[in-house]
């Protein structure tokens, strides 16, 4: 298992390099001369060719692409993602200062969504075509159809404005977390619930489940111990991607709930063509996705004996 994990970790290096190359090329190949763009914001008059040339030399924009890329990768590996054109602050610091706020709603939202989806998905699959199954499927359909900003406003109107139980927006005590977490969670629960249900239904039709039932095992044991574990492989894959999406910023929820996270910052940077932030964010997002995928791969090994067997074979059983 350790050897497998290490091998997977090493395999991530070229992936990460690919992401960084993409991010760097994205900003380098974007229309417009970065020197002119940056100077244009600093100066009131259009920069002269001499000013542009001097600036290019100063920040190394004249160097060959590979040299510039090498410098970028070396910096990124040290956590230096450049400087924001908008704020003049280091991109890493800008992202790092907002990341805890995003994480603070992403993690609980994911936990709520995953737990709820699992619970409802399993009940719905086990009691297929029952009232509860129909109700949960309709709820999931609604959950998938309602845009998250509509859901957010509905929750605010009901719980904050009409019932007065919760604050409308902003950060503060635990009560401030409820609505943004719920909005994020409910929007995701539907997807995960439907997937849990369909995966479990598929697994419940497998021969080994029938065998387990024929052996007289309790239905709860059959479902929870054997079937669900296998059904989770697909769910975990999607859940991993959703989690990575959560922690790299949720623009709508952050905007509606005045939550100072990473999502709104990045969107504003995109609007302002702050290529340094965009580039840094692509590397940051790529890194998160790569790490979450690694975690998902390792979970596969725990969940699916076939994957475990393959991993042991490929690493000689180490």
């Amino acid at each position, binding site marked *: 298992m350790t050897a497998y994990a290490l091998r997977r970790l090493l395999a991530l290096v070229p992936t990460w390099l690919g992401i960084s190359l993409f991010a760097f090329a994205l900003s380098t190949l974007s229309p417009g001369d970065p020197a002119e763009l940056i100077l244009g914001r600093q100066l*009131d008059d*259009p920069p002269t060719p001499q000013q542009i040339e001097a600036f290019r030399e100063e920040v190394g924009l004249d160097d060959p692409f590979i040299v510039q890329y090498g410098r970028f990768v070396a910096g990124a590996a040290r956590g230096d993602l450049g400087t924001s054109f908008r704020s003049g602050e280091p991109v890493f610091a800008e992202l790092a200062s907002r990341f805890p706020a995003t994480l603070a709603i992403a993690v609980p939202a994911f936990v709520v969504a995953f737990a709820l989806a699992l619970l409802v998905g399993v009940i719905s699959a086990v009691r297929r075509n029952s009232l509860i199954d129909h109700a949960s499927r309709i709820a999931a359909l609604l959950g998938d159809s309602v845009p998250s900003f509509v859901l957010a406003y509905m929750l605010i109107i009901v719980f904050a*404005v009409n019932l007065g139980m919760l604050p*409308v927006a*902003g950060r503060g005590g635990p009560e401030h977390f409820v609505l943004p977490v719920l909005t994020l969670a409910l929007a995701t629960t539907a997807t995960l619930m439907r997937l849990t249900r369909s995966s479990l239904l598929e697994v419940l039709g497998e021969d080994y489940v029938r065998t387990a039932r024929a052996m007289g095992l309790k239905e709860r044991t059959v479902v929870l111990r054997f079937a669900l574990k296998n059904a989770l492989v697909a769910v975990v894959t999607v859940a991993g991607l959703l989690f990575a999406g959560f922690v790299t910023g949720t623009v709508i929820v952050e905007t509606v709930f005045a939550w*100072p996270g990473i999502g709104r910052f990045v969107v504003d940077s995109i609007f*302002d*063509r702050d290529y340094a932030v965009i580039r840094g964010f692509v590397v940051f997002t790529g890194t998160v996705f790569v790490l979450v995928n690694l975690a998902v791969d390792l979970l596969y090994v725990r969940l699916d004996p076939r994957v475990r067997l393959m991993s042991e074979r490929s690493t000689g059983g180490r």
Partner: protein
Amino acid sequence: MGSVVHRRKRSIAVATFAVLALLASSCGGNGGNGSGGGGGSQKKVVPADKQELVVGATADPWVDSSPSDKKRIPNYPLNADVCETLVQLSPKYEVLPVVASKWEHVGGNTFRFTLDERAKFSDGRPVTADDVKYSLDYTVQKPETSGFAFLGLESTKVIDPRTVEVTPTKPNLRLVEQINHPTYAILAPGSDPFSDVKTTNCTGPFKVSEYVAGERLVVVRNDNYWGEPAKLDKITFRFFPDDTTRTLALQNGEVDLVTDIPRPVVGTLEKVPGIKIEKSTVGAVLLMYTALRDAQGNPRLLSDVRLRQAVAHAMDKEEFVNGVLGGNAEVVDTVAPPTVLGQYASMVKGLDHDPKAAARLLDEAGWKLGADGVRAKDGARLELSIVFDQTRTETSVVEFIQARLKDVGVVGKIERLDPGAYRNALDTGSYDLDLSLPNQNDANPAFLMSLRWFSKATGKNAKIISPGPDTEFERLIDQTQQATDKQELQRLAAQAMHQLVDVEAAGIPLSGMYRVLGVRDRVHGLEVHPSGTNQRWNDVFIAKE
């Protein structure tokens, strides 16, 4: 110039939803004292024991505003009444004394300011001429604010402890009308609001208590204030980037006052018990700038004045104000608030809505109406690109312009741009019409014209939209910079604006906009300033409910 009251883009769906949401929740029985909007009650208002105001402001302006805005916490673009300037701007656009009790033009380009001997900082120390020099030099030296600077390090000269002389770097006698801008706040030495807002030691009725980027700015009463003390103990400015959430926060009582209410929900909000709507006079004009040439100086379609005049004649301002803006604006003919021009505002007539006149002008220019309803000349269709910043201007506004252009056979091609692309379009001149909403934040009636259309202005876009260096407009703007009498200044500015709007049609005003605030009934004493950056809070108080 900060553009503060622009609307964030909202889709029709969101706006509709917001209206429905407000309607739904207003029926929820959560509303205050049931006295209704308008604040017309005559009963005696008794101040409450707890004097704390919570303001729902837009997105944190020191984090989220455009990099071209020269941010300074805590006084620009959001003014928390912590710092004061030598002079201030009244809601009627008059210059009033604050830290300087009097001023005079002493010849040449120089003004002498005498400091009010009562003026002191929040730590109790009296304001001296050295402090004024520190403050103005601080602004000049900071790259974040140097874009404003018509001052240099040699501009401010200490004459004696209570007297300073200020000489702008270029011949321009509009110093007094413009030095009210919050960026010229008087700071005690050692104050460095760019690096650490808590170091800010100013002379205003409030002082900074806490700032959390992206979340809130808290100010408390300055007990050492040298003027009439503030009635409030504390103001918390909370930042809500989303218009609808901000409005809902007012409804559930989480905030006492919200700025920048989406115009579509004003009517609905007025009916909510416990909430009143308060408006300023016109402080900004929604207008179209016309690109006469590109950045290289090559003429564009609208270099032909007949086309510009035709565009102006095509616009039905009454329909725009009463239809698109729901009556929450005024028809104006000027490119700046009429108040700033005083009695001379009527010199600017505006080009009336007259599609026939538009058609005649286009015909004269050789653009003939084709069978498809679109005008063409030498095989080319008459197409004008309309650019706007999608985060600041609603698409419905631009669609109105497009529809009116179509009435006279002109195709309006809408380009919804993000702020970066928008800025780039303005810098390069790759557009025909630019829709924008500049605020009037000082008392110089010619400020906007000097900044935007004057060919000698430093901005890149001025070269693109200026009527040109050899025009009557330019000559008049030059004269406004040398006028020594207020009446003369207003007359010259009105004449220049007449040239700009009525003759050159290089600026096409659409509507005069005022600031609209939603306020809970218990909030009293608020006079909404037409310029948000000059808003004062010291007379506001909370009444017993």
